[in-house]
């Protein structure tokens, strides 16, 4: 039986270690996010939607693939909520499912160019594939 949204929300809390109740909804995380313009659901919404248990919608979000893991939201949150950890946890909840990898090895050759550092491939794989 597939996990209920309530169970999923519990999983996200466990994987991320984030206490969403600490959020005071100041919006600084989204205000400082360098990928803000490329996101459908913004970092502050991740916090409130996990709090409300609306995980199915988060798992469909394109923000999972545009978050840069730059830690600006983590650094600047006045309540130490660490929204990036929530985004990572939801991303993992997606790619840990069979067949749900966002980046597949056979896509790599066409993405390469001569100067691309190995670091780019390794980090993208770590973020987008299991």
């Amino acid at each position, binding site marked *: 039986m597939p996990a209920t949204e309530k169970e999923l929300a519990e999983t996200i809390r466990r994987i991320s270690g984030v206490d969403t109740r600490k959020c005071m909804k100041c919006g600084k995380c989204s205000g400082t996010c360098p990928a803000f313009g490329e996101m459908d659901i913004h970092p502050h919404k991740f916090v409130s939607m996990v709090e409300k248990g609306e995980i199915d919608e988060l798992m469909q979000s394109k923000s999972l693939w545009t978050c*840069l893991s730059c830690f600006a939201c983590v650094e600047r949150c006045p309540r130490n909520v660490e929204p990036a950890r929530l985004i990572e946890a939801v991303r993992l909840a997606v790619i840990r499912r069979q067949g749900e990898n966002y980046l597949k090895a056979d896509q790599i050759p066409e993405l390469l160019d001569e100067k691309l550092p190995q*670091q780019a491939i390794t980090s993208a794989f770590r973020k987008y594939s299991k």
Partner: protein
Amino acid sequence: MKFSYYPGCTLKTKAKDLDAYGRRAAEALGITLEELPEWQCCGAVYPMAKDEIATKLSSVRALVSARDLGNDLVTLCSACHHVIKRVNGDMQNDENIRTKANNYLQLETPYAGETKVIHYLEMLRDVVGFDELKKKVVNPLKGRKIGAYYGCMLLRPSKEMQFDNPENPTIIEDFIKAIGATPVLYPFRNECCGGYVTLSKKELAQKKADVILESAMEQGAEELITACPLCMYNLDANSTAHKLPVHYFTELLAEALGVK
């Protein structure tokens, strides 16, 4: 002065200059960097998930290896530094991760984050000292207007990285002064270059890199320096903005020390 040294994968391939100049400059400063005998890729991004142990093990192995050699561990790539330093923090502070990593590795002496991890720039600041470095410069880079590009990985989260002030850092500007050049401050020096998103969303990374380059040029920078091969790629190869030359900071250090 001797350190264990973790170069990382990219410094053995696309970023050989970052490594080679770094080693040469260290030698000129009387510092011995001993590459760890067997190291594995750090994974390039810090695994934030509390339930991921396997992806942290390569960092733990490097940290244990340095401890067993009795050395502090010097890193050079920003990403490796970020990953290894944060995993070390987990081994100190997260009992669950520490217990599971130790259960898996079955070390003779369990590891609890004893190794001190410092980035090459911290070594210059805190071990050599920028005043001492200045004295050893034989070829001061006079008249060069250089923008420091910090990026994300060295600075954030500052609670864990403890590298410098995350919003108003000075270490790279101080380095630029020490090698005789003029640092140029610009507002986007600690903004993200686009990072790994460059692989799947090229235009997003391009936008990020362009803003940084434009910001640096507006303030009068004529070149940028970085400690990260992925930042180098995004700023140098992937940007569409009018180009500024981008160098690894170790190249300028080697130049100033006369060992380039």
